[in-house]
């Protein structure tokens, strides 16, 4: 039984003005073991989140492929312009196909 992925943490405003660029910060706890760290004693087993996706009302607005050089506990900051209220979905996928998911609604008005 593999443990579930950690619950992502999202910092996002609840409200925005029309056309405003909002800042979104995401963090998910994960060791991001590349399988090549550790040197002569032998590397820790590979365990990587390899994809992140951000959707707004179902449309992918940002996608990432996370390489070996992405830090443990992947952290991302980006800005989205909102013209109307919308539902954000944040997804992380690991190499075993496990998915971590979070959602957030931003009301524009």
């Amino acid at each position, binding site marked *: 039984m593999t443990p579930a992925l950690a619950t992502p943490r999202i910092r996002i405003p609840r409200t925005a003005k029309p056309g405003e*660029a*909002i800042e979104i910060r995401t963090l998910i706890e994960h060791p*991001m073991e*590349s399988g*090549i*760290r*550790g*040197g002569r*004693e032998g*590397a*820790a087993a590979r365990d990587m989140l390899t994809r992140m996706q951000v959707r*707004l009302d179902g*449309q*992918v*607005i*940002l*996608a*990432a*492929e*996370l*390489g*070996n*050089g*992405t*830090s*443990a*506990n*992947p*952290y*991302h*900051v*980006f*800005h*989205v*312009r909102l013209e109307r209220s919308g539902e954000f979905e944040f997804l992380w996928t690991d190499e075993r196909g496990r998915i971590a998911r979070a959602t957030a609604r931003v009301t524009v008005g």
Partner: protein
Amino acid sequence: MLPRRPLLLALAALPFGARAAPSLEAAIRDLVGEARIEAGGIALRLPPLAENGGQVPVTVSVESPQTAADHVTHIHLLATRNPTPGLASFRLTPALARAEIQTRIRLAEDQQVVALAVLSDGRVRRALAETRVATGGCIG
């Protein structure tokens, strides 16, 4: 400790020449094909000294109106002296208000980081930044 100055000089002289590390050059071409790589219009911010190579903050910011007709489609981050060059690749859309991504990367030792931005018209921009790493991020 390997001498690193020749690599830095090779990278400073664009386009990336045959003297760049083969794996880095191959990784760049895998990402952007044979497109000519231009300097300017892109900023890569790294701390000059990273205390912890396991958590190095990095920001890539590309000058772009981020409209449907003119926007950044991809931002790629590569390491020049990590065991593997790939740090992260991002696919952007005009929904992003700015062509800017902030994240944290793992760096094994003192090195340059390369940021590449692919524009919607196919042009490719690049920026380099150098950081010294006090404690490498690839030690177990």
